[in-house]
C-alpha cells in the first residue's frame, strides 16, 4: 500500500511542478506582452514618418507638409537637464539624511512623510502650483519653471530609493570604515554611498524616465514653443507637449508626426538610461558586488 501511495504522491508533485512553471511563464508573458505590443505599434505607426528632417527641422505651419520636432527634442533635453540638476542632488541629499543622519528623529519622519505626499500629488496640480510660485512672480512662462516642476517631481523617487539603497548597505561595511578612524560623514560619503551607488543611480533613472514623459505640468510652466529656443526665461518646447498638441489637432500630417514623436520619445528614454548604465558599469571592478 505504502509504495503505491508514494508513487501517486510523486506523480502529483511532478504535475504541480509543471503547472506552477507554466503559470509563471504565462504571468511573465502577460506582463511583457503589453510593452512589446505598444512598442511594436509605435514602430508600425511612427517609423515611416522618421526622416532626417524630423530631427533637424522645427514644426511647419499647419497645412504645410514636413517639418520636424528638433526644437521639442532639444527642449526636452534642456528641461530634463534642469530637472535632474534640481531633483538628483536634493533627492540624494534627502535620502542620505534619512538613512544616515536622521534615523529615528521626528524631522526624518516628517521629511519622509512629505516626500510620500509629494509623490502622490497629481502632475497637473504640480504644474498649477509652480505656475503660482514661479510663473506668476516672473510674469511669463519659462523653461526654468518647467525644469523646476519636473525637478520637484523627481525628488520623492530619488530620495526614497536612495534611502532604501543606503539602508541595504551591510552594517559590517560601515563598521569597517568607522574602525579605521574615518569620521562618520566621510564614511557615509566615500563608503556607504559609493557601495549603494548602483541602486541610487537606478533610482535616479527611474525618476528621470518618469518625468521625461510628463506633459501636464509643462502646460502651465514651459508652455511649449513652436520655434527654436534656448533661452531659459522663455517658453520652451518639449517632446510630450508637442506630441499632445499634434495628437489633438485636426491635421493628419501632424498626427503622423505625433506617432513619430512618441516613438522617438520612448527610444530616447531607453537610450539615455542605457547610456548611464554603460558609463557607470565601466567603473566597476572584476568581481565587485
Amino acid at each position, binding site marked *: 500500500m505504502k509504495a503505491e501511495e508514494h508513487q501517486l504522491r510523486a506523480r502529483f508533485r511532478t504535475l504541480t511542478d509543471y503547472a506552477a512553471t507554466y503559470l509563471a511563464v504565462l504571468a511573465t508573458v502577460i506582463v511583457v506582452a503589453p510593452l512589446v505590443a505598444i512598442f511594436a505599434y509605435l514602430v508600425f505607426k511612427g517609423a515611416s514618418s522618421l526622416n532626417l528632417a524630423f530631427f533637424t527641422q522645427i514644426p511647419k505651419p499647419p497645412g504645410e507638409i514636413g517639418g520636424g520636432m528638433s526644437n521639442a527634442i532639444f527642449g526636452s533635453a534642456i528641461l530634463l537637464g534642469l530637472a535632474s540638476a534640481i531633483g538628483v542632488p536634493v533627492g540624494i541629499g534627502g535620502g542620505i539624511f534619512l538613512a544616515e543622519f536622521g534615523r*529615528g528623529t521626528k524631522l526624518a519622519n516628517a521629511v519622509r512623510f512629505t516626500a510620500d505626499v509629494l509623490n502622490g500629488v497629481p502632475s497637473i496640480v504640480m504644474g498649477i502650483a509652480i505656475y503660482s510660485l514661479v510663473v506668476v512672480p516672473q510674469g511669463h512662462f519659462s523653461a526654468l519653471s518647467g525644469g523646476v516642476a519636473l525637478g520637484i517631481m523627481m525628488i520623492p523617487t530619488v530620495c526614497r530609493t536612495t534611502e532604501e539603497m543606503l539602508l541595504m548597505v*551591510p552594517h*559590517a*561595511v560601515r*563598521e*569597517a*570604515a*568607522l*574602525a*579605521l*578612524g*574615518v*569620521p562618520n560623514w*566621510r*564614511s557615509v560619503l*566615500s*563608503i556607504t554611498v*559609493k*557601495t549603494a*551607488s548602483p541602486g541610487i543611480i537606478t533610482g535616479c533613472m527611474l525618476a528621470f524616465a518618469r518625468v521625461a514623459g510628463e506633459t501636464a505640468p509643462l502646460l502651465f510652466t514651459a508652455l511649449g514653443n513652436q520655434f527654436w529656443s534656448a533661452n531659459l526665461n522663455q517658453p520652451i518646447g518639449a517632446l510630450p507637449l508637442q506630441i499632445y498638441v499634434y495628437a489633438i489637432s485636426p491635421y493628419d500630417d501632424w498626427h503622423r508626426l505625433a506617432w513619430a514623436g512618441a516613438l522617438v520619445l520612448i527610444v530616447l528614454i531607453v537610450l539615455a538610461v542605457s547610456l548611464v548604465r554603460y558609463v557607470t558599469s565601466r567603473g*566597476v*571592478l*572584476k*568581481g*565587485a*558586488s
Partner: protein
Amino acid sequence: MGVGIEVIDLNAWYGANHTLQDINLKIPANQVTALIGPSGCGKSTFVRCINRMHETNPIARVTGTVRIGDLDIYEDAKPVEIRRRVGMVFQRPNPFPTMSIYDNVAAGLKLNGYSNRRVLDSVVERSLQNSALWDEVKDDLKKKSGASLSGGQQQRLCIARALAVDPEVLLMDEPASALDPVSTSKIEDLIFQLKSQYTIVIVTHNMQQAARVAEKTGFFLNGRMVEFDSTDKIFTNPSDKRTEDYITGRFG
C-alpha cells in the same frame, strides 16, 4: 611598537542592560591576550570599549577608565583619533565591496587625507607583506575587487587594512571563526609574527586557539572578568572553579 592597556572600573550598558560590570585589567604590551567566555558574557563589548566602537550604538553607555599607554581614551581623546591607534578585525571579513585590493588596504589612509602615490604604494605593499597576503595578490592589486578573494584571503586583507594605518593595538573579534582550519592556522601564525610590533587582543570562542596563540588569557562570565592569568595556568590549573567548569565543558 605596541603599548599596554590599563582598564579601571569599566562598566558598560546597552540601554538598560548592564553588559560589563567593574572590569579591572592590565593588558601587557607586545603580547597576545585572549578573552574567552560563553556567548553573551561581554567579551566582544569589552574590546569594542577599547576602540570606542561600543558607543556607535545610540543606546550604549560607558563609565570607567581605559588607558592606552599614557592616554586616557575617554577623557583625553576623540573616538576618531583612538580608532586610528587601535585597529580592529571583525568576525566576518568585511572588505569594502566596491574597492580594489589596493584601495581597500589604502582606505584608512586615503580617507584620512593622504594622497601621496609613493607613500601609499609602499604602505600597501608593507601591510600586505605583514599580513602574509602580498605574494598571492601582488599582480592583481588594482584589477580585482576586495570581495573577489577567498574567505581566508579576505580576512588577511582586512588585517592588512587595519595595519596600514599603523596602529599600536590590534583588536581581533573572533577573527578565524568563519574560516577553515588551514586559513585559521595561517591567521594564527600571522598573529604570532605580529605581536612583536603590536599589542594584540583576541576574542575567541575556541579555547584551543586561545591556548595556541596567547600568553595571557582572561575568562569573562556574565559581564564580569572572573580570572586573568597566564594562558598555561588557566588551562592546566585555573584558580576559580567557574573557569575550570567552563574550560572543561561542564557548562557553556
